[in-house]
């Protein structure tokens, strides 16, 4: 074992976007920061993957729709190589007969829609944006403790309380009611069109172990709509795939003085009784630091890197009770050329395409996941990024990426046997809307939640490092007793999606964690 010569103030474990963002803010505050990353490229789940010769694709998340604008600005990401090739895309809910519905940020279009649905959508949309705004005000700060309060937490609570009051009495009451119920009922309350209801409700369940009828899914929907608060009028596409975002954040971090070591797997976080002393890399190298910030999910952090035996039983129990059952698979298709979709113009094919004809379709797809089976008729969120960025593919070719739900991480029959049939099933599903697509496939791959888990080191393959349900947010995230980034271990902080406010490429967990560490100063 060799001791590293450099003396770091902080070691960040994992160069996911939150880890890098946290590192950047800390470096800007004068800390000497080292980021260690097990993979060869920074970015974590913001990754681009060449899955077939010449064909690259965003390996996990494929849309950018809620990166916090303060982060974008503070880190000057656009001057570090981040380039939007498409912004404010529409969401198109596909119908087999071509009678699609187009959802823009504030209106909906489609032949099957009635005027009353269109009107209702505007009302609904405005109300949801108000609610998302309220959430946003709580998300840029650490989650307040409710009893052991101090000024910071009181200010957050006051802000939340004031925000609630500003909603007006009726909206405030609606907020209290809606935030815990299911998106299914809210859709039924507001709309008639089945396809529309499905298209909206899918945003309440993407990435989760929930169906539209599961209570808490309105919260999931509001969470997704945070992007609108941040000025995204729909999803955006990044040049070079999401990996380019990782690169840009890494470049920004490095320009602030952050040292980044890739291909460096942390074997364990070192402790002196209950105080962090640094990390040991696989291979035995020991790097010292008084602060370690983990971008890894809480289970990985405490179970693997710290070790349950090195924390108290109650904390270990809290950690092992975190629910993080990933259900989203990724399908990647390398295509000879742009496929035909019934009723879609070429320009429309570059928008966000949804396959989910009814809410019951999604719910039925979810039923399977409850019992450890994959959906026979999955719901899909499709992106053909190559329409906006031809650098991803050989000339004239296209690449299609789809988020597929539901594909449970712990599949009863085992993914070794199920992967191929499931992939074919998903392709068949797309082919119902894009006849002829099968003939265009040059190569294909399906990443199951198990693949995502091992590729991106996320327990359960869960995007959010832990279910985004109401019992696991705010002061319950990642678990009671660790909700303000600091943990029971002195000098250990969490900055990943498992921490408040949660996942998605938003960057707030990393930013808030840095703010907390800087605020605590020497006490951190």
């Amino acid at each position, binding site marked *: 074992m060799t001791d590293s010569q450099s003396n770091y103030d902080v070691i960040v474990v994992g160069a996911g976007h939150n880890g890098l963002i946290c590192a950047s803010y800390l470096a800007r505050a004068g800390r000497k920061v080292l980021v260690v990353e097990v993979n060869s490229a920074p970015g974590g789940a913001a990754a681009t993957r060449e899955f077939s010769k010449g064909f690259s694709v965003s390996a996990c998340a494929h849309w950018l729709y809620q990166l916090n604008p303060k982060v974008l600005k503070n880190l000057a990401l656009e001057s570090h190589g981040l380039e939007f090739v498409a912004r404010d895309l529409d969401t198109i809910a596909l119908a087999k007969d071509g009678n699609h519905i187009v959802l823009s940020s504030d209106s909906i279009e489609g032949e099957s829609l009635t005027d009353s649905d269109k009107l209702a959508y505007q009302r609904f949309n405005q109300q949801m944006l108000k609610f998302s705004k309220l959430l946003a005000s709580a998300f840029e700060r650490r989650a307040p403790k409710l009893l052991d309060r101090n000024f910071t937490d009181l200010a957050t609570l006051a802000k939340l309380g004031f925000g609630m009051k500003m909603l007006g009495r009726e909206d405030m*009451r609606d907020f*209290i009611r809606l935030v*815990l119920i299911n998106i299914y009922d809210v859709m039924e309350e507001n709309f008639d069109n089945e396809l529309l209801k499905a298209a909206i409700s899918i945003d309440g369940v993407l990435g989760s172990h929930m169906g539209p009828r*599961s209570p808490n899914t309105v919260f999931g929907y509001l969470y997704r709509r945070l992007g609108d608060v941040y000025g995204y009028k729909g999803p955006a596409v990044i040049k070079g795939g999401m990996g380019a975002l990782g690169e840009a954040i890494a470049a920004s971090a490095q320009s602030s003085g952050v040292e980044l070591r890739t291909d460096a797997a942390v074997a364990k976080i070192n402790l002196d009784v209950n105080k962090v002393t640094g990390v040991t890399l696989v291979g035995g190298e020991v790097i010292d630091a008084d602060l370690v910030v983990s971008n890894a999910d809480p289970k990985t952090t405490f179970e693997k890197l710290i070790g349950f035996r090195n924390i108290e039983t109650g904390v270990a129990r809290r950690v092992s009770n975190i629910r993080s059952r990933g259900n989203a698979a990724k399908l990647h298709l390398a295509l000879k050329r742009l496929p035909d979709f019934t009723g879609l113009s070429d320009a429309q094919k570059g928008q966000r395409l949804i396959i989910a004809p009814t809410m019951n379709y999604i719910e039925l797809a979810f039923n399977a996941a409850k019992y450890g089976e994959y959906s026979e008729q999955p719901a899909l969120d499709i992106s053909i990024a190559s329409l906006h960025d031809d650098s991803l593919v050989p000339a004239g070719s296209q690449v299609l990426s789809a988020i597929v739900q539901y594909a449970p991480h712990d599949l009863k029959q085992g993914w070794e046997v199920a992967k191929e049939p499931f992939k074919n099933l998903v392709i068949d599903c797309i082919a119902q809307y894009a006849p002829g697509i099968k003939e265009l496939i040059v190569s294909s791959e399906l990443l199951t939640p198990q693949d995502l888990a091992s590729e991106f080191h996320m327990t359960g393959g869960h995007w959010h490092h832990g279910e985004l349900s*109401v*019992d696991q947010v705010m*002061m*319950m995230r990642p678990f009671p007793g660790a909700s303000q980034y600091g943990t029971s271990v002195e000098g250990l902080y969490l900055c990943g999606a498992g921490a408040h406010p949660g996942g998605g490429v938003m960057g707030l967990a990393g930013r808030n964690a840095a703010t907390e560490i800087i605020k605590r100063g020497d006490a951190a």
Partner: protein
Amino acid sequence: MHGVQRMDVTKKYDAIVIGAGHNGLTNAAYLAKAGLEVLVLEKNSYIGGATVSRELHKDWKYSNCSYVCSLLRPEITRDLELPRHGLQVVPYGGSVTFCQNGDYFGDYPDHERQYREIARHSLRDANAYERYSADVMKQTRLIRPFLMRTPPDPTSLRPRDIKEMLVLGKAFAEMGEEGLADTLRFWTMSIGEYLDEYFETDVLKAHLAGSGIIGTALGVYSPGTAYVLLHHYMGDVDGTVGAWGFARGGMGAVADVLAASFQSFGGEIKNDAEVGKILVKNGKARGVALANGDEYYADTVVSNLDPKRTFLKIMDEKDLPEDIVRKARNFKIRGSSGKLNIALDGLPTFTGIPKNSPLLHTDMHILDSMERMEKAYDDWKAETWSKDPYVDMLIPTQIDPTMAPPGKHMMTVFVQYAPPRIDGAEWTDADRDRFGKNVIDQIAKYSPDFKDLILHCEVRTPREIEDEVGLTEGNIFMGELTFDQLLFNRPFPGYAQYRGPVKGMYMCGSGTHPGGGVMAAPGANAAREILLDLKLRNTVPAGYADD
């Protein structure tokens, strides 16, 4: 004589209560006790609503809706002198779940046998059960003091609301920071996930999870169902929190004594008097019109009906603000349960359990795994009854000698799930019969001689429950018990203090705080608010403090 009759019809009462359910009767009793002249109007020829015992088979009494008693507030029982009027609640303990493999899980009423029985499946779970019980008791203790209080309006700045919010806040604060987080988790989690945090044994989880879904259109893995479990734990029999009992003579005995108490204060009950409309004039309630056209007048009109029925059926949309109509439409009151009431020629035997087992005196459940429980709910979502239904059976005649001839038995069978509509259409008699047969077949799988003992069977689907009792969609709690419809959200945000949108009009049913079950707290709480508005002496007792 003619003149007398006319006078009767036009007579003005101080208050009219619509519906002689247990809450209506409780409410009426407290109003009458305060000196008001009160009329209770009941559409059926019998009283009690869903708190009823009926002789549908000669010499058998069926508690054909609610069937056991725990939640009935002891403050009310004592204050209205219900024991003097004849109420006896006999506690019973324990429960059992029959397993598909011929085994069973016996939740014995005595602690040590229960411990050993859980330990037979998992020693760890047997130990964890203590922690589970303590944790659920913490939540129970938090909610119990609020059963006999009016929920505050969190959007209001009136001194009373602020004071009540502080009481609520103080109770929550006493949980401590992590305890508070645990409370928020408990209120928002599914019963399945909550139990997953304690136990590894599937049958134990399935056994306990039943309380999280009874009467609820949610599955064991739907968030919010952990609270529903609490609703079954927060009652008590003689101070034993969480205990359940039989009302001697069936649940109708509860309604009978409430009526007797009400009548002892001079109250009047009219049966076969279905209310068609609440009469409103100049924004004030002034009485009711029956379906047959008769009118009765009072400046205070209290509805014991569920919120949907109250605002969408017996009130005129033009008399109501727009928001309440919308809220009533969105109110979740989905039917999810059915009921079989069966006269038996003798005591049935159950596979694996000896005839003398104490477990036969208890709640007997069918469904031994969480997956089967959840799949039963999938059927409900698909608008059909559960093919493999969850069943909670009791044979109260083993304890209560008044309900069937000696040696004969009455079995009450609660069934989850049964949807309010079948494939989008109304239930038909044929549907009902097939539903009933499916349940009987289910029970017969665990009781070989059961079918041969059946003398008579009444099958009730949500349709029958709605038609006879008047519960919209057949929802037994008059509205689902999810957080969006609890406390200050029950029945609707802004209307949780028993007052309707029209002056002089009130709600007192289980659709109001603290919700369903034979608790009588909504009726009593509503009476307190009415008397406050009328500036009369409060006759409603305060809740007992838990120590």
